[in-house]
């Protein structure tokens, strides 16, 4: 059973040049499905349709095995019966209720304040119970909004760019909480973002939306490794993006990561062994050599085969399977002098410091 099965057509409300028809179909297999796309791609409209705030002209929406909308069978459950929780970008807590009452608002029964406290503890907001929303930081608001959504025991939770108003550290901390809550509760999340790093970091399944259509989908690491859609490619840019596993930390001050079949040395990562981290590597920082060079300061020398050469402005992007795909950006002159072509065996030289941990 897929957590989200969606196939809808919905006329977008915007007038003017932005106007488009949302015509999206996808089946999300992961526990956390990321809906990625630039602003105006129709992500929020899609979310509203799933939640029941917008009615599609036709189609079918199935959430956690339950049909909440089906134009052919004339099913259109009202929002309150859909059992779908939501966390908005700006949290939208009820401003007239303190944190405890905000969370208990979604709960039923006599022990709802006990449940509220339990959920607050789970999102690391146990000490905030008597605060008013206006006195909370952005990150705290999002935690409370997540606890509030959980209180109604939803079959799924929708998150509409929950991190976008937060700064780096708050974003990372909240991301960790969201990941934990998802794993412990087993509730499928549909997570909207326009940040490709975020999509890579938290998604099990990624759906790329552009102009109201699904233009690419798959495992996030596959999407960023081979962005076939224009929007994904533009978001990825000249960056190699990976979801890597921390293999070990060395006392000499470096970390070994598994990029997915290839081990690399990077600067010291502040994540424990076994954890997954998102790392970026700029294509400009990758050197190509025809033979296996020694005596350089580059900590990583990886053998591979060129699978693709594509022009990028005045430079050429060279895609090398190591077996993990790594892209290097080199000049046309280098390509000619080294006689690089598809199938050429090459070595890649990468400094440890070139790998950047992404948050």
């Amino acid at each position, binding site marked *: 059973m897929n957590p989200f099965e969606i196939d809808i057509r919905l006329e977008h409300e915007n007038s003017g040049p932005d106007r488009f028809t949302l015509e999206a179909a996808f089946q999300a297999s992961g526990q956390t499905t990321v809906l990625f796309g630039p602003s105006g791609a129709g992500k929020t409209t899609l979310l509203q349709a799933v939640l029941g705030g917008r009615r599609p002209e036709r189609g079918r929406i199935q959430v956690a095995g339950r049909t909440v909308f089906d134009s052919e069978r004339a099913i259109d459950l009202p929002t309150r019966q859909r059992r779908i929780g939501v966390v*908005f970008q700006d949290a939208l807590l009820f401003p007239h209720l303190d944190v405890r009452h905000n969370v208990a608002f979604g709960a039923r029964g006599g022990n709802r304040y006990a449940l509220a406290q339990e959920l607050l503890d789970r999102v690391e907001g146990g000490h905030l119970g008597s605060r008013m929303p206006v006195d909370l930081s952005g990150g705290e608001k999002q935690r409370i909004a997540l606890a509030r959504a959980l209180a109604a025991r939803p079959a799924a939770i929708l998150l509409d760019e929950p991190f976008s108003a937060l700064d780096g550290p708050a974003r990372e901390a909240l991301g960790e909480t969201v990941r934990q809550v998802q794993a412990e509760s087993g509730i499928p999340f549909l997570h909207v973002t326009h940040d490709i790093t975020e999509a890579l970091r938290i998604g099990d399944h990624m759906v790329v939306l552009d102009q109201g259509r699904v233009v690419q989908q798959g495992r996030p690491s596959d999407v960023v490794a081979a962005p076939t859609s224009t929007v994904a490619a533009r978001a990825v840019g000249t960056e190699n993006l990976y979801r890597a596993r921390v293999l070990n930390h060395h006392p000499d001050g470096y970390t070994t990561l598994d990029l997915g079949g290839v081990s690399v040395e990077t600067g010291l990562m502040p994540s424990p062994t076994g954890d997954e981290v998102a790392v970026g590597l700029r294509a400009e920082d990758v050197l190509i050599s025809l033979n296996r060079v020694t005596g350089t300061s580059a900590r990583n020398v990886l053998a591979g085969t060129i699978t693709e050469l594509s022009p990028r402005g005045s430079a050429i992007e060279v895609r090398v399977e190591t077996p993990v795909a790594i892209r290097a950006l080199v000049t046309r002159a280098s390509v000619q002098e080294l006689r690089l072509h598809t199938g050429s065996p090459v070595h890649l030289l990468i400094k440890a410091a070139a790998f950047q941990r992404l948050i």
Partner: protein
Amino acid sequence: MIRSALFLSLWVTLASTLIVAVIGTISGYLISRRRFPGRGLLEAVLNLPLVLPPTVTGYYLIVLLGRRGLLGETLFEWTGFTVPFTWVACVVAASLMAFPLMLRSALVAFESIDPRQALAAASLGHGRLSTFFRVLVPMARRGLLAGMVLSFARALGEFGATLMLAGNIPGRTQTLPLAIYEAALSGEDRDALLMAGALTLVSVIVMILAGRLDRKTA
């Protein structure tokens, strides 16, 4: 005369403020929920008492509620009761004159609430009524309160429509503004001054109370 006018005025004003608060809040909410064809016309009609001369509004009320009026005739046949020249007429006139002010305040207050708030409440399993009373009304309370203060002031000062529908019967339908008018006209300056003072005092007290409430709910 002064005492009965003062008590009648207070009673009529409180009653109409309450009536207008309830009806104005509900209609403000219903109109705020969506754009529909004819909404502009509906709002214009509901706002008419604000722009029409009060005597015109009063005249329409007579046409509607008089013993041979459109509604008044049926009401009389069924109950034997007629609205004109009773305290009920004072309340009806004051309510109608105050209604647009309450409606406007309520409409603005509800429209300024992010529609996703109602969606969030619904996603937490709450129906329309529960969402209305537990989320929307509390969130709109400042605007609603402001509307009630305006309505109170408008009802307290109501003169023209009241005169048309309720007449000016001392002890029965003579509210303070009517009594002041009569006292000033017949040269009873002391009484006129006293009542004007009383009206001013009530207005000041209401404004202070409203200001306090407003700060408390802020």
